[in-house]
């Protein structure tokens, strides 16, 4: 059985996820409004109420796209900012 469910859900702020949700199931947010949720009934219901389920490959592609945009933004930074502010180029994120 799969350990996780993958989905996209826009974080609308307060009560998007509650402390009780965090105790009920695994939940991790990633770029592009991608969420990785523990594959439990409560986790599945949480996603069904807030967003749409994706395959892991689809979710990973969204994250990759966001990271690519962030890398491009980093590359466009003035050299003085990269040097003086200890900015690091965003690295790839692999979904669990």
């Amino acid at each position, binding site marked *: 059985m799969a350990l996780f469910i993958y989905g996209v859900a826009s*974080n*609308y*702020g307060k009560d998007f996820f509650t*402390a009780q949700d*965090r105790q009920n199931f695994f939940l991790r947010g990633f770029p592009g409004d991608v969420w990785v949720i523990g594959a439990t009934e409560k986790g599945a219901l949480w996603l069904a109420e807030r967003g749409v389920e994706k395959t892991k490959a689809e979710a990973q592609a969204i994250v990759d796209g*966001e990271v690519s*945009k962030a890398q491009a933004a980093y590359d466009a930074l003035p050299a*003085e900012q990269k040097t003086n502010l200890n900015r690091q180029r965003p690295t790839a994120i692999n979904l669990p």
Partner: protein
Amino acid sequence: MTTYNEIAGRRVNFLSSDPTYVDTNSDGQVWYNSSTATLKSWLPTGTWSSGGTMGTARYGLGGAGTQTAALAFAGGATYTSLSTSTESYNGIAWTALNSMGTARYRIVSTGIGTQTAALAFGGNTQVSPSFIVTGITESWNGTSWSPVASMNTTRTSFGGAGIQTAALAFSGRISGPSFTGATESWNGSAWTTLPATNPVAKSGVGSFGTQTAAISVGGSPPTVATTNSWNGTTWTATTDYPTASYALMGFGTQTSGIVAGGDTPTATLTTIWNGTAWTATSSLPTGRDAGASTGTQTSGLITGGRAPSPTGTSIEWNFGVYSYSAAAWASGGNVNTGRTYMAGFGTQTAAIKAGGNPTTNQTESYNGSAWTNVNNLNTARSDFQACGTQTAGVGAGGYLSPGVSNATEKYNGSTWTTSGNLNTSRYNAAVFGVDTAAIIAGGGGASPVGVALSATESFNGSTWTTTPATLNTARRLTVGTGINTAGLIFSGNPGTGVTGATESYNGSAWTSVNSMNTARNALGGAGTQTASIAFGGNGPSAATESWNGTSWSNLPNMSTARLALGSATKGTQTAALAFSGFSGGILTATEEWTGEVATANSKTLTTS
């Protein structure tokens, strides 16, 4: 008529609201609440609540210790995937430790020993293609496992009790079709087979107690409800468990125990054992069996097991007037404009976000549910730092793209006003205190730009004064908490890489104290010198840690890993706020931390 005072030695108080439960001296207190016209008393209850999740999901594992200092080891995710994994628990989170020498499962489930002195013995080392049971015994010293003398009777799915230097083993399966009731004792160096055998010669026997005062409960096949009591010499039948079951999870003593779950099939039943009888109490949240169980009748822990699939989750048992809700991060209102490297101050329900990258003078105010744009800073800047409350804050320094600022501004809840400049221009420093008594320490300096500073300055409400105190570890991208006479700085970037170094400030000097578990920079924090919380940071990280004045402990992670986040630094260890930051993209999301909450339960007395 006999009065309550004559019975209990205390009067029934006439109160307009429920009193505060103080400690066990409050037990038995009865009061009349005149507002609700009810006669009430404190109500001790047993409750299960969620605990931390192990890194390795498994069942048939062993355990040791207490609810807040536990150890878990061995077990299997499946019968073909047996584990040597060892993990420790601090009451909040599990941490991987050195592995055992022999992978095995179906060992004694009740705790044997402590987090730093445990014992593992017996179990299955293989089920298929050959059924192999072992008597191998390993001893844990808090750091590593060492092999010691093996059991006389190799066995699996058996009962046991005791501590590292005085343990007991009984019953169990000795081969595929064969079972034993053999009892043997461990004296810290060798196993001795005892004359008495447990009449329950079965596997899956639940157990708890000590080497000389133990309980054996249930077992299979066939599944029984038999309960036997051990006095160090003989086994005696006592009151049957309420239902036939096996793979039960028990903890406590021979006269004061808890037994839960079991395979009947996977059950939720929880029972209190008083030495003579079983009483059903609050059920497990979900059915579970074959987990590790440890603790006392008033404070226990079950971790792992099958629920019904192999799990790494833990559940905590508490019996008393208090019930507890677990600590966790929850979503808060989104910021209007996502930023990185901004200043944050105030509390969880009254916070300010100011400046940040891309360089801005924008300021937002949080009321506990939503952010509102308010009057801007006079000087736009990123990598900015500030402290104080939502209506009395002070910020200083920052990065001007290019250039390093020494400008100071004070915030009164509606507008920013310029104040005395810093003596040393800096950015990404630690600032703590209030608008009339603040400290700034460390940061990236101006010459050369970015050099990690150790210099400390003190603010009196209008002027910054350089103090003789210097950080032991110069750093930038750091966080400070506390007040000007009792502060704390933790983690950061010492020039290259990251440091977890923590230093305590007493108003005149910095003292190095224990480092964070996860070194990082660009993190958030809140709290005081003796009770702080740290979260997020480079990586990006979701890790959360708490500081108790002596050491750092891991807490449940944030939902979204992030660096360069904002935090309400005047928040507390149990009510913190994290907002915005970077996680492969600039975030607008806010998360609110609520620490473990204890609630005293009372009941209304009626005549029925």
